[in-house]
């Protein structure tokens, strides 16, 4: 027989045999998967940030399809659009997602505070904190070695002037940075709030002031001027109750050290209907 023909016939028959075996195996051993898992997975942004509480987008999609009664609005990066699509697939009522952003409660950059030592150890905040509370004078503030930068799935955080800054337009509100920060400086809050205490120092006013010119000294000026009684001072540190806060900004105006900031979070409804399809 022609050797070329023989080769073609032998290889093709081996190939066909493999194919038949696989088809038979898929028919008899196949595990049926819920089609909705893939459909739901398509709606999710795929950042695998874990803000929903499941192990990535695949885990959330699987849980939604397999168990009943799981909320469809747990995906913060996906926002309203993802929640609406998932609700349509599952045939349940749509729930609104509160978009969230991460904020840093420290503004002790190079202009406000300085270092107490030259740290040359392992370049991570976690390690630096174990070594006399980090290189900065303030033991409560941002260490600035960027543990949060490395966990951010959307590159929304950068280190500038020695402290972390969050680009609220890029932030998807997953909260991974808040979990990572060894100083617990980052909180995730609804992006409608505007007034922010940018200090975490719980020491007495004089001590805090010596370390950082941006430090909250616990003078209670903000408490006196707040018309809605939303501010309290605990452990020499102002704290805003966002349930009562009306965003009037009186506290920021009267803060003598300027550690209360008004930030504008508007325009960051990243997944709203008019810019649909902007996936990460």
């Amino acid at each position, binding site marked *: 027989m022609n*050797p070329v023909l*023989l*080769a073609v016939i*032998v*290889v093709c028959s*081996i*190939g066909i045999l*493999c*194919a038949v*075996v*696989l088809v038979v*195996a*898929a028919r008899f*051993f*196949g*595990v049926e998967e819920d089609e909705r898992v893939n459909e739901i997975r398509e709606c999710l942004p795929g950042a695998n940030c874990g803000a929903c509480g499941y192990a990535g987008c695949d885990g959330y999609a699987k849980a939604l399809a397999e168990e009943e009664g799981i909320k469809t609005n747990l995906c913060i990066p996906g926002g309203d659009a993802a929640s609406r699509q998932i609700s349509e697939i599952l045939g349940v009522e749509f729930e609104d997602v509160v978009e969230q952003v991460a904020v840093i409660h420290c503004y002790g950059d190079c202009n406000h505070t300085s270092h107490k030592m030259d740290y040359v150890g*392992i*370049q991570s905040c976690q390690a630096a904190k174990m070594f006399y509370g980090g290189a900065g004078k303030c033991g409560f503030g941002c260490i600035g070695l960027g543990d949060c930068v490395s966990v951010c799935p959307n590159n929304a955080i950068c280190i500038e002037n020695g402290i972390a800054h969050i680009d609220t337009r890029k932030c998807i509100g997953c909260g991974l940075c808040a979990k990572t920060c060894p100083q617990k400086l980052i909180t995730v809050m609804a992006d409608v709030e505007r007034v922010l205490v940018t200090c975490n120092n719980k020491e007495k006013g004089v001590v805090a002031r010596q370390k950082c010119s941006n430090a909250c000294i616990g003078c209670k000026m903000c408490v006196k001027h707040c018309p809605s009684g939303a501010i309290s001072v605990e452990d020499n540190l102002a704290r805003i109750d966002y349930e009562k806060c009306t965003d009037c900004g009186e506290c920021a105006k009267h803060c003598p050290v300027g550690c209360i900031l008004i930030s504008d979070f508007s325009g960051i409804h990243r997944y709203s209907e008019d810019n649909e399809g902007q996936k990460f």
Partner: protein
Amino acid sequence: MKSLIIILMTSVLVNNYVLSKFLGICPFLGVSKKLNQAAGMGAAVIFVMLLATAVTWPIHTYILARNGLEYMKTIVFILVIAALVQLVEIILKKYMPSLHASLGIYLPLITTNCAVLGVTLNNINDSYNFIESMVNSLGCGLGFLLAMVLFAGVRSRLETANPPESFKGLPITLISAAIVALSFFGFSGVVDGLFA
């Protein structure tokens, strides 16, 4: 028996597939970051290597060699190994979901792993019989596992090391891989000497 032990030791230490022959570098660099993942990958490779040899050796001897088609072995082996791994995956998913969940990510990765293909082809090139081929595959798989586990240890040290900025990440990983490979060079000649 002695020759089988020599084959086994040679393929684990002297002709280590990753560190001496530079086959299967992709999983070696890709999944060696954590010890348990590296061990999982190594176990999966041993399993697939043995299975692939058990199937490809008879195919070569009884189908290809009889028809004078030895030159087609590379293509046929790729085809057969790919189909085999898919089949194993389907069966595992059905009957051993927990094992599938732990191996699941690695199995498709191994489908086109050149180390697996290399073992099956080298068994033929070295004209091993079936038993010798199986022992050689086991040795290569164990060698792969050894390399993965050793390198996972090296990489865990790299995590806390502080190399110069331009060496961070992949460059320093490749350099340390080269140093580990160099240490395996010291095994050449050792195995033959043991049984001389």
